[in-house]
């Protein structure tokens, strides 16, 4: 199991936004988190990548306790694409290089970063500053960082929202390729129909503070 928890609870300002029981995501699965706005999808996504400390949880990540923030070893296995990625200062290529660890030369890392950008069809953006990109382009850049990291577990928050057809095709191809290679994908969506055909497992999050079920 990539993730396992008997319970995950979180509240904001005393309002319970998440209360899940028996949550588990198998290795190599395409797991969808479906629910309306305000159902806690982004909250759960952030908990799953160690950006948010839940109010109460016994979450394990790949069999190990999941601290906040995650350990470097745990983080190296994860890639997160936020619903609205924040543009990093500087140029796209340099920021994709940021995601690549190891002791390779800068030139080698840049070549790898450019390959990842080209794979998603956005190699032409390499020299642009991130501040000049649209939300859709930022998502693809964020996804290219996921590719560059070589992470086997992707958590994608509403990846298909706001994107045009070409963006969706690029994303579909990247996700399918990653999954064929044995990677795990956790994806949130407020539109159940659009992801139900894609996912092999799904969790419906109810609105507000009711309990979710697998």
């Amino acid at each position, binding site marked *: 199991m990539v993730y396992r928890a008997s319970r995950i609870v979180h509240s904001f300002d005393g309002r319970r936004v998440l209360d899940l029981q028996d949550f588990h995501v198998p290795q190599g699965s395409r797991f969808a988190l479906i629910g309306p706005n305000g159902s806690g999808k982004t909250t759960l996504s952030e908990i799953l990548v160690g950006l948010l400390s839940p109010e109460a949880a016994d979450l394990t990540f790949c069999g190990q306790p999941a601290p906040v*923030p995650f350990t470097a070893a745990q*983080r190296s296995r994860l890639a997160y694409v936020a619903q609205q990625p*924040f543009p*990093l200062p500087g140029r796209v290529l340099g920021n994709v290089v940021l995601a690549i*660890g190891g002791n390779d030369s800068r030139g080698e890392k840049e070549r790898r970063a450019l390959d990842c950008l080209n794979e998603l069809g956005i190699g032409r953006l390499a020299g642009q500053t991130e501040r000049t990109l649209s939300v859709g382009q930022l998502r693809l850049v964020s996804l290219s960082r996921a590719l560059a990291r070589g992470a086997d577990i992707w958590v994608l928050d509403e990846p298909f929202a706001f994107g045009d057809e070409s963006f969706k095709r690029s994303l579909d191809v990247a996700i399918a390729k990653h999954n064929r290679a044995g990677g795990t994908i956790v994806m949130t969506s407020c539109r159940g129909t659009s992801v139900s055909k894609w996912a092999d497992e799904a969790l419906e999050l109810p609105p507000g503070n009711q309990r979710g079920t697998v």
Partner: protein
Amino acid sequence: MNAFFSAETLQICFVSLKTSAAAIVAASALGIPVALWSSGHDFAGRGALVTAFNTLTALPSVFVGVLLYSLLSRSAPLGSLELLYTWPAMSLGQTILAFPLIVSLSVAALNRTDVRLRKEMIALGVGRWHMGWILVKEARFGVLAAVVAAFGRVFTEVGSALMLGGNIRHATRTMTTTIAMETSKGNFELGLGLGFLLLGVALAINIGFHRLQEAKT
């Protein structure tokens, strides 16, 4: 007027600039990492720590002077360093004055950066030092404003410079200590002239910082 346009005036300007510049470099090197740490961590007492730094921005320079004097004088614990009445002692006093101002204003600037930037970098696995560098770049206008404000404070202070430097001619005489001395001697013209010169130098430095900010936009 001859006393004003002299090599000695230039030397006094140089001592002032050298002392304040060293203090600002030291206070920035210490203060900006502390600000990054304070703004990036939730810990018990964080609010109290930030309040303490805010309070210390009003630290009286004569108090810093007395404090360091009691540590640096010949029979004091740090007397063996023989720093008293040297420009490094003045610079040390100014560093103590500038440090809380840089921390306090930099924390405010860093807290204004978008929380999503921090999250994006954590999710990317960006190293701590690299993340700090990116956050400082993101908050550069506020951080630079903190450095400028701190420079203004130390460049124009007289209390600790007088106590720790001793206003020694050709050694620790600064623009402010000279103004105080000349005014006490009744040389108001020279005192005023040096005062305007001090303002002119401060203006030139601020224009330089402003250009730097514009260039980075």
